[in-house]
């Protein structure tokens, strides 16, 4: 499955040093604090992190949906086909939304209008950007609903959102996102509210659609299990920054950041029965009062004195695998979890092998 993924190398979307702050009367929450990532063509990129780490805010800022005030994009660039989306005016942005970049939200019932049929809502999504006659439009919508696996779409098209099950509502949302054949779909926890069996179907659907239409998907999730099954590349976020990035293999087989390692170790499963689960002590910091230096240091088991002072740089482990932890990078004897293959650890300059 993982080997079957063949993404292109051309970046479709490149986010550079994005900073989004939320200002209140007294404090300033640094929700996104200088993140850089890119999504290449035909690729599924996952941003994973716990609640409040800034993953949704990053997604919303790509589409220019940050409520301003209190939110503000303070710095950075969002380059889509080389064009900076932050500098675009509202009208140009509307041409991008839905047409080139579409979004699927977590809770389909709140994003669907309860007083219109799903047919109305899907046609609206098409008509916003395309001019179509009534008859072909109807046929196109039925086709869309059929593509996302809604049974007997000719009848369902006249249903209201409340008449559908959770999984089917999410399928309708995906149909609306697909309406204008976008280049990129941003999916913000689209399966969190669903049962496991339905979640599996929605993930399979997203994967097959992506393959068929050769789109890129930016998938936002807190669920490492989901991420491991669909991602080509993964960015791990913590307290507004990216702490580790790499392909799925690198992240799940040889995580290099203490936070990623901790997250993976703390997942319960049958095979860990009888053993005590590793748990990361403490809790996620308040974004307005982030600790100095490395934001993870109060919870980190590898911390040294300099972690409290210096903001950690990204360390390159080769082949696109980066982790923001110089301590682990420099340390020779790696006392992390046993899955870590020490011989694959390489320094940026490539001249020294750490054992």
């Amino acid at each position: 499955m993982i080997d079957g993924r063949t993404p292109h190398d051309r970046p479709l979307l490149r986010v550079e040093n994005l900073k989004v702050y939320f200002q209140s009367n007294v404090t300033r929450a640094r929700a996104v604090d200088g993140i850089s990532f890119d999504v290449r063509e035909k690729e599924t990129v996952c941003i994973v992190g716990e609640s409040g780490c800034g993953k949704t805010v990053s997604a919303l800022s790509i589409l220019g949906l940050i409520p301003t005030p209190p939110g503000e994009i303070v710095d950075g660039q969002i380059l889509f086909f080389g064009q900076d989306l932050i500098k675009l005016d509202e009208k140009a942005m509307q041409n991008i939304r839905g047409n080139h970049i579409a979004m699927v939200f977590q809770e389909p019932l709140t994003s669907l209008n309860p007083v219109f049929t799903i047919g109305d809502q899907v046609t609206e999504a098409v008509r916003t950007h395309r001019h179509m006659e009534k008859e072909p439009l109807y046929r196109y919508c039925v086709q869309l609903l059929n593509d996302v696996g809604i049974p007997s779409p000719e009848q369902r098209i006249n249903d209201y959102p409340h008449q559908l099950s959770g999984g089917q509502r999410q399928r309708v949302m995906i149909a609306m996102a697909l309406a204008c054949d976008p280049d990129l779909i941003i999916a913000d926890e689209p399966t969190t509210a669903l049962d496991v069996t339905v979640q599996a179907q929605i993930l399979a659907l997203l994967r097959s659609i992506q393959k068929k239409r050769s789109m890129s998907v930016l998938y936002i999730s807190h669920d490492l299990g989901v991420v491991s099954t669909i991602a080509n590349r993964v960015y791990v976020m913590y307290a507004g920054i990216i702490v580790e990035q790499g392909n799925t293999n690198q992240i799940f087989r040889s995580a290099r950041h203490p936070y990623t390692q901790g997250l993976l170790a703390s997942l319960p499963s049958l095979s860990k029965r009888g053993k005590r689960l590793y748990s990361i002590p403490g809790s996620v910091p308040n974004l307005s009062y982030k600790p100095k230096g490395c934001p993870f240091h109060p919870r980190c088991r590898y911390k040294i004195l300099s972690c409290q002072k210096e903001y950690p740089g990204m360390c390159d482990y080769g082949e696109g695998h980066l982790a923001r932890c110089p301590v682990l990078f420099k340390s020779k004897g790696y006392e992390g979890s046993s899955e870590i293959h020490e011989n694959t650890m390489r320094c940026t300059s490539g001249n020294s092998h750490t054992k």
Partner: protein
Amino acid sequence: MESENNNVILRTEGLKKYFPIRRGFLQKVTGWVKAVDGVSFNIEQGKTLGLVGESGCGKTTVARLILKLLESDSGKIIFQRIDISRFSEKQMKPYRKEIQIIFQDPFGSLNPRMTIGQSIEEGIRILGNKYATNRKQRLETLLSMVGMSPDSADRYPHEFSGGQRQRIGIARALSVEPSLIVCDEPVSALDVSIQAQIINLLKDLQDHLGLSYLFISHDLNVVGYLCDFISVMYKGHIMELASSEDIFHHPHHPYTRSLLSAIPDPDLDKKWHVKYSNDYIGELDAVSKGCKYQDRCSMAETTCRKDEMAFENVGDNHFVRCWKVAKNI
């Protein structure tokens, strides 16, 4: 199930709860939602029974029936060898403190206008004379048991994070010294790193206090880690009941198999693929005859649509509600 076992703290026998569907101006009863339709299981002293299933399968209704927050229509709830299913409110009183519950959303279950010290003290006071003289001390013990500092007693629920609130919820359940705790999705709303803390806490408390748990969850990974036995529920029926190892390594019922295949596993060596594609779940009472799983089952035959399925022992305390599976073993 073996009828007499001294270690069994709670046993249910054929527990049923139907909710009426009322329609029209006169609110006539037009049908029944069979939320819990003949559920039987044992919970052994000091052990954990997991109850898994999709939303709407009746998990939470089972919890409420056991706690007697809902009156069951029929069936027995035998707690410490006494049938409490038909007890009056007054008769129930000494048993209320024996069975406690931890909710999914701890914020919703804590009074926002009481400090957490006051909330927990309410429970201690119910024990009467036992801690009459050293109530403050008991409060501090409880807080430290769940990993909170004693000075948090003077703070209000909104001052705490989700994980801490869940700890407070647990302290509150412990304040009356129960022997059985029903955990209704206690970690579902928590982040991964916090989830592990709460799971460890529940495990430690069980080891120290000899608690028994009924652990309700939709997350099979959590249930597999924490529970000794797992029962898989579907539309008010228990479809399969066995030890955790058996459920994961030798699942028999087609529903259990499809549930297991749907778990996205972060272990990259395991292949993940979905086994079935029918996501339509009809109304709870849509299937009137035969197996409740017939609509989604890939193995369904005419017999499945006619006959009631028996809950059969297929060896080693492994129970399955599927005649086809039972026949082939």
